[in-house]
C-alpha cells in the first residue's frame, strides 16, 4: 500500500476556500438574521472549513477506513457529551418544581 499524494493544486484550492470562508463568516456576523440563524450560519461555515481541512489537509479523504472510523467516533463521543448533558438542562423546566 502506498499512500496517496495530494497535488499542490488541490491544496491551493482548499486554501482559497478557507480564506473565502473566513471572510464570509465575518461579513455574515454583522447581518442581523432572524431567530438563531446567526449562530447557525457561523457554525455551518466553521464546520465546512473544518471538514475541508480534515478531508484534504489531513488527507482523510485518501486514508484507510480506520482513520474515518476514528474521526467519526471522535465526533460521536463529542455528540454524547453534548446531547446527554443538554438532555438534563433542556428538560429541567418541563416538570416545574413549583406549584
Amino acid at each position, binding site marked *: 500500500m502506498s499512500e496517496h499524494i*495530494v497535488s499542490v493544486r488541490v491544496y491551493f484550492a482548499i486554501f482559497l476556500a*478557507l480564506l473565502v470562508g473566513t471572510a464570509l463568516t465575518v461579513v455574515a456576523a*454583522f447581518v442581523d438574521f432572524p431567530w438563531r440563524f446567526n449562530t447557525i450560519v457561523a457554525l455551518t461555515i466553521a464546520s465546512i472549513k473544518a471538514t475541508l481541512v*480534515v478531508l484534504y*489537509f*489531513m488527507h482523510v479523504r485518501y486514508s484507510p477506513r*480506520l482513520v474515518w472510523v476514528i*474521526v467519526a467516533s*471522535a465526533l460521536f463521543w463529542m455528540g454524547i457529551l453534548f446531547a446527554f448533558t443538554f438532555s438534563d438542562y433542556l428538560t429541567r423546566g418541563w416538570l416545574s418544581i413549583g406549584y
Partner: protein
Amino acid sequence: MIESHATTQDVHGHPALQHHFENMEQQREAGTIGMWVFLVTELMFFGGMFLAYALYRSQFPAAFASASNHLDITLGAVNTAVLIVSSFTMALAVYFTQVGKLRPQIICLILTLVLGVTFLGIKAVEYHEKYTDRLIPGHLIPSAPFGPDAHALHLLPGATLPQVEMFYWIYFAMTGMHALHMIIGAGLLTFLIIYSIKGRFDPEYHGPVEIIGLYWHFVDIVWIFLFPLLYLLGRHFEHG
C-alpha cells in the same frame, strides 16, 4: 490494509526503522494512527470547554454578546487568516517531503513556524489589551483583578458584570489552552526543521512531518471554531 503485514523481515532496512517494526510501512501507519487517536483525545479535552461555553452562552446571551463584542474582531480575523496560511504551508511541507524536495520542504516548515509565532504574537497583543482593560477574570493577576469600566463595555440590556467575567473566564481558558497547543506545535516544528536540515526525511521516511502536520491542522481547526464562537456571535446585536 491493516491486516496485511509483510511476513518476512524488511529487505531494505531503512536506518530510521525501529527494531520492533517489520517494515517502514508498518512504522508509518502506526505513527499516523497514533496521532489520530491522540487527536481524538485532544478533541474531547477541548470538548469539556466547548460544553461549558455552550451552556453559559445559552444562559447569559446578553452578557456573552456584550463581552464578545468587546473583543478585537480585526485581530481575531487576521489571526484566523494567519493560521489558515500556516496550515497551507504545513500541507505543502508534507507534500514536498513526500516527493522528496528538500529545499521547499524546509522553507515551508520555516514559514509555518514563523506564521505560528505571528499568531502567538497577535494573541499576546490581545491579551495585553484585556490586561489594560482589567478584563482578566478573578485575581488571576493579583495586581489587576477583574474590574473593567462597565461603560466602556457597552453592556447590552440584561447583562451583568459577573456574567461578563464568566465569558472572559471561558475566553481565557479556551484561547489559553489553544495557545499552549500552538506553543507545543512551534516546538515540534523547530524539531522538524532541524531534522529536515540534517536530511533525515525522505519519501520513504516522512512519518514525523506527516503526524506533526496532523497536529498542526487540528490546532487550526480548533481555532476555526473558536473564532466565530468567541468573536462573532454577538456582533449583529450592535446593529439590530
